[in-house]
């Protein structure tokens, strides 16, 4: 059969002939060295920003940008409705995502995919029980234990549970029921994690050495889900886990023991006019070196405004619980900050931008670069 298969080489030859003519230009033909086609073996060096470019209509991606220039270094391919996880050293990334047999219908194969960041290589992958949460990108929905042994996947059927994946063995070792609870908050050491429960408590699970068992401990109520619920995005500064309530209270928790304990509660908007409240998706970012927490805020808040784009970012001095600086921003949805002593903040917008902000000594922000994004870019991650 003749047709496309025979035409293709002709087209290719024609395409290759054009550069020969143009690139040759006035130079003698014998000086021309044909270029060779290859794949770039590694991404460009230097610190990265990872953005989960989630798609619900089909394949999404994890985009890797250069921190200094925001130049795109590589895309790591995911399925639909993916969650992103990056190792603390920035060398490994994972995605949990859905691969529907016919893209919009048919059996859904849910996969935990590992990526080598330097080469952007895929694999190995682990097939998950088909229960993983198909949610907007939130960092607490895909985490790894502090000892690096286990990846933890938030499930919703809509009953809540957590799938435990042994990273070394590349197998699912356990599924832990977490009824009425949501989000995964690994302890700073070992293989324990906590989760927020709908009655205002936290439940904590300490995994056995092989990951197949878990001991549960429940905290006292640490927030009031009726009057002032907490956002699920967290930050860790030292031994403390930081959460925000819808109204703007900063809650510090300790997860060093078997059960979570409340350390303090600070009203960040007390005495500040304008009805300001926190809002966004990944709406807080901490820099431990400066002991500062950046919080996305909007004015004239009301019931239902908690996902509103950020109009300002407030820098909270964690030593005093007071506002050190307020900076206007471009309706950001999500933010992250580098851990360096001279930190840089990155934010995404619902309109599809990644924006870099420099931070001065007083913790005020100045926009220094921007680039375009694809998909629902609600979660981002940054390493040194």
């Amino acid at each position, binding site marked *: 059969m003749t047709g496309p298969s025979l035409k293709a080489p002709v087209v290719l030859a024609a395409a290759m002939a054009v550069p020969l003519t143009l690139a040759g230009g006035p130079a003698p033909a014998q000086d021309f060295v044909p270029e060779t086609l290859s794949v770039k073996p590694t991404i460009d060096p230097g610190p990265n920003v990872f953005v989960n470019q989630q798609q619900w209509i089909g394949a999404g991606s994890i985009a890797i940008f250069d921190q200094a220039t925001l130049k795109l270094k590589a895309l790591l391919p995911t399925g639909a409705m993916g969650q992103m996880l990056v190792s603390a050293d920035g060398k490994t990334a994972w995605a949990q995502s859905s691969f529907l047999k016919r893209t919009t219908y048919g059996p859904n194969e849910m996969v935990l995919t590992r990526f080598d960041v330097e080469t952007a290589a895929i694999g190995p992958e682990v097939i998950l029980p088909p229960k993983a949460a198909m949610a907007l990108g939130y960092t607490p929905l895909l985490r790894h234990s502090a000892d690096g042994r286990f990846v933890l996947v938030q499930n919703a059927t809509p009953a809540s549970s957590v799938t435990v994946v042994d990273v070394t063995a590349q197998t699912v070792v356990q599924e832990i029921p977490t009824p*009425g609870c949501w*989000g995964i908050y690994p302890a700073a050491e070992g293989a324990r994690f906590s989760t927020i429960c*709908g009655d205002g408590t936290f439940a904590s699970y300490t995994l056995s050495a092989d990951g197949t068992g878990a001991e549960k401990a429940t905290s006292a109520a640490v927030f009031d889900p009726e009057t002032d619920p907490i956002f699920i995005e967290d930050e860790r500064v030292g031994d403390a886990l930081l959460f925000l309530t819808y109204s703007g209270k900063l809650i510090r928790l300790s997860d060093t023991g078997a059960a979570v304990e409340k350390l303090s509660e600070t009203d960040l908007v007390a005495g500040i006019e304008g009805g300001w409240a926190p809002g966004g998706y990944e709406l807080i970012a901490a820099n431990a070196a400066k002991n500062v927490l950046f919080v996305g805020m909007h004015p004239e808040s009301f019931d239902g405004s908690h996902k509103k784009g950020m109009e300002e970012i407030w820098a909270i001095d964690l030593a005093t619980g007071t506002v050190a600086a307020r900076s206007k921003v471009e309706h950001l949805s999500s933010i992250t900050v580098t851990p360096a002593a001279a930190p840089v903040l990155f934010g995404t917008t619902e309109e599809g931008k990644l924006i870099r902000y420099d931070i001065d000594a007083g913790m005020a922000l100045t926009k220094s670069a921007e680039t375009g994004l694809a998909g629902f870019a609600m979660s981002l991650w940054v390493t040194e």
Partner: protein
Amino acid sequence: MDILAKITDLMDRATEAGVRGVAHKTGRRSFLARMGGGLVGAALMPVLPYDRTFGTAFAATGEDEYACDYWRYCALDGNLCNSCGGTLTECPPGSETSKVSWVGTCRNPSDGKDYLVSYNDCCGRTACDNSPFCNQNVGERPGYRMGLHNDINWCMANTSQGYHCTVAVLVGIAE
């Protein structure tokens, strides 16, 4: 424990034994386990006697059902099915209704009453980006109050899980 929390707890308890049962069958894709959880939720959510309003609705007070500020969309996050071949209460032809849903409490400006609105996703077709994309969140809560959460695909308990669009069905009046 409020009514919604009790129902969520019941939903979770009903599936907990099943979850434990599959804990060591890790490579096997268990549609039955997922469907079991979904059907429990499906049986409970539409008759939810939910009576909390989380304050007054501010943004959604309009009366044009093709606009995002239509009053019954006060907690709708997604594409409008009535702009995709369906209606306020009907999924577009060929799609499936979600077996589970989230619930909002919205004030009808014409009679001043608060109605319980079941936001069912319609499933198994391409995301209908032809429609307005709405993102209203009155009373919306994170996943630890799953029945009030709208940042998740409520086609999760269906056999066809592609998100298409969302309807807004009145299922009761808040006390």
